[in-house]
């Protein structure tokens, strides 16, 4: 049978009274079918101003060249690559939620995967701008692809991780986009069938003619599963290759074999933090509290804590290996990170990434919305500093002390970075207005299995172990979307 009763021990994934399929559709389509509220307009105005700053700063960089940035002869790579890695890392959570959690049959992904995947796509767009902008001659960006160039039949150097990166990032973007859009088709069809006039025509084109018949659903499911299966190694490969941009060089501080797993863990860490930052606000402003519940928030916090600890172990391993290797230059690079002129960046990174996520061991903190939100931002600051520390502190004191230098960003550096954050939020806010922010078809799968309402029905029917029922009741305490009255009613 299509619906089966889930164990009472599992916490509900959908709360609220009188949950029906129609209510799911109505609730989730509120932002799409109505005019935006004030909160949206305020957010959008600020974000759009940021996006304009981005357009201006990137155009200025194109016009004047890379000299517009604060780079010097010693530090030839700084904020551009820092921001690039930061954005690519943030993108990883979307694929992780949509692919890895699908393979592991984690049903709680159903209500957060859509917005997380959208976030992935927008983050990769932001990251791609740095790739193009840092080239100096962006109109020749196509040179990174294997085309015989005008000097004869010379090809790109396929031994170079930068070329691998071009392949990895473009594959990642394409596959994520295809995965996201295929998943959107049934939901766009829902919007289409409820709309009238011009809206109906637009969504009709976007829906590709989806009808929801048996064969199409069967193919849809198999396509989703295989896309998830191939996206899982893909997402791991992308940040592995990003880390090889550094690890295959011979610069002390970069030349380490721990980089691939360490970067992947860091990417998931910062990605989940960004999902948390966005969703905690989205659920409040868009009234999605019944779909993105405390269980989701707590689960994401647990992932942030775990990956934060992995990143912490990686930092300590790096320090140990620098000492254990006996390499003078390697040891100096790390001593310089910890206690050199950039000590403040290193310790910001350590505090934000290693120490602060440990607070999530406490349930009270893990289930507190304001603290989770603040910590998610702290993590993103920390992850930005991680990349800054790896890149700038490894470069700024090279083998020749006479060329030692410091890096100071110019207004263009700051503008491109702050602007890209604005661009990201602009795209995300537009997405919430025109497409369903939660995968409706997938949440509908949970209505008769994992909803609070269904569990209540089971409890009322009896036949359950009272100890298990008590466990379920206790687990409801943390939910902000289940009122105390409802819990009291259960106690009867």
């Amino acid at each position, binding site marked *: *049978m*299509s*619906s089966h009763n889930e164990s009472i021990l599992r916490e509900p994934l959908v709360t609220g009274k009188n949950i*029906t*399929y129609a209510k*799911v*559709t109505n609730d989730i389509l509120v932002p799409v079918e109505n005019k935006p509220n004030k909160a949206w307009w305020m957010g959008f105005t600020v974000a759009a101003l940021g996006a304009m700053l981005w357009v201006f700063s990137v155009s200025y960089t194109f016009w004047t060249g890379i000299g517009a940035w604060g780079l010097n002869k010693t530090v030839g790579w700084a904020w551009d690559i820092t921001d690039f890695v930061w954005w690519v890392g943030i993108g990883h959570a979307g694929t992780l939620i949509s692919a890895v959690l699908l393979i592991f049959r984690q049903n709680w992904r159903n209500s957060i995967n859509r917005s997380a995947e959208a976030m992935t796509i927008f983050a990769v767009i932001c990251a791609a701008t740095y790739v193009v902008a840092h080239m100096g001659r962006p109109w020749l960006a196509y040179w990174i692809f294997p085309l015989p160039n005008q000097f004869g*039949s*010379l*090809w*790109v*150097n*396929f*031994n170079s991780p930068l*070329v*691998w990166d071009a*392949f*990895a990032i473009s*594959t990642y973007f*394409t*596959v994520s986009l*295809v995965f996201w859009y*295929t998943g959107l*088709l*049934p939901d766009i*069809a*829902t919007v*289409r*069938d*409820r709309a009238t006039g011009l809206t109906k025509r637009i969504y*009709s*084109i976007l829906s*590709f*003619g*989806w*009808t*929801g*018949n*048996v*064969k*199409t*659903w*069967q*193919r*849809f499911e*198999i*396509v989703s599963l*295989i*896309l998830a299966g*191939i*996206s899982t*190694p*893909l997402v791991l*490969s992308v940040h592995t290759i990003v880390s*090889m941009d550094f690890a295959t060089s011979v610069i002390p501080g970069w030349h380490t074999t721990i980089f691939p797993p360490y970067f992947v863990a860091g990417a998931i860490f910062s990605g989940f933090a960004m999902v948390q930052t966005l969703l905690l606000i989205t659920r409040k402003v868009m009234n999605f509290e019944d779909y993105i519940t405390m269980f989701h928030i707590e689960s994401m916090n647990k992932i942030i804590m775990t990956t934060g600890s992995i990143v912490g172990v990686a930092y300590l391993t790096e320090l140990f290996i620098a000492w254990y290797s006996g390499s003078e230059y390697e040891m100096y690079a790390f001593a310089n990170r910890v206690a050199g002129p950039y000590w403040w960046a290193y310790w910001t990174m350590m505090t934000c990434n290693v120490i602060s996520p440990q607070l999530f061991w406490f349930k009270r903190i893990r289930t507190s919305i304001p603290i989770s939100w603040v910590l998610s931002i702290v993590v993103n600051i920390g992850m930005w500093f991680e990349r800054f520390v790896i890149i700038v502190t490894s470069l700024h004191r090279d083998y020749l002390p006479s060329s030692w230098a410091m890096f100071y960003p110019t207004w263009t550096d700051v503008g491109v970075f702050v602007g890209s954050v604005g661009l990201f939020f602009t795209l995300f806010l537009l997405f919430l207005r025109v497409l369903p922010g939660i995968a*409706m*078809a997938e949440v*509908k*799968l949970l209505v*008769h299995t994992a909803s609070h309402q269904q569990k209540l029905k089971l409890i009322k029917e009896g036949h359950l172990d009272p100890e298990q029922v008590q466990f379920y009741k206790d687990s409801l305490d943390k939910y902000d979307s289940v009122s105390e009255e409802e819990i009291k009613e259960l106690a009867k």
Partner: protein
Amino acid sequence: MSDTKYILGHFDHPDDLMDGIDKLQKSNISIYDVYTPMPIHGIEAKLGVPPSRLPIVAFICGITGTFAGISLLYYTLHKDWPMNIGGKPTIPMPNYVPITFELTILFCALGMVAAFYFRSHLFPGRAPRVMDLRATDDRFVIAIDAKNNTDHEKIDSLLKDAGAVEVLYNERKYVSYE
């Protein structure tokens, strides 16, 4: 009644829908198609829909990508313009891995999704062949060809017996999307 082309049984619970399919099949009434707002597991087996062959397409596309990747690298690095890059061999197998892998994934994803869209007739601008507008919202719809199955009263009672909330007699096959 004679103008009826399709009979649509509306259900509001997937379990009732499955029950409806069972009842119709027991009375030898053929089902044209079923439209649902979400995937329903086990329905394909019940309706005799054969398993999808898309995994085979995915595998073939993936392996094509693998060979495309290796051929590209072999041709450019070894055959067309061998270059001395730090004294490395022109067929450095480890360095072939990342690009070959990425192309495998890319070909597999694009090929499989293209095959899915092609076989299911999904493309931008296709007029949706929708029988009932609520089938993408909250109703699970069984469509029965009324010309082939003439005993309409029996179908009606079978559907209602199974828990159909509504039974519609449509004179047009699709909802107009002009």
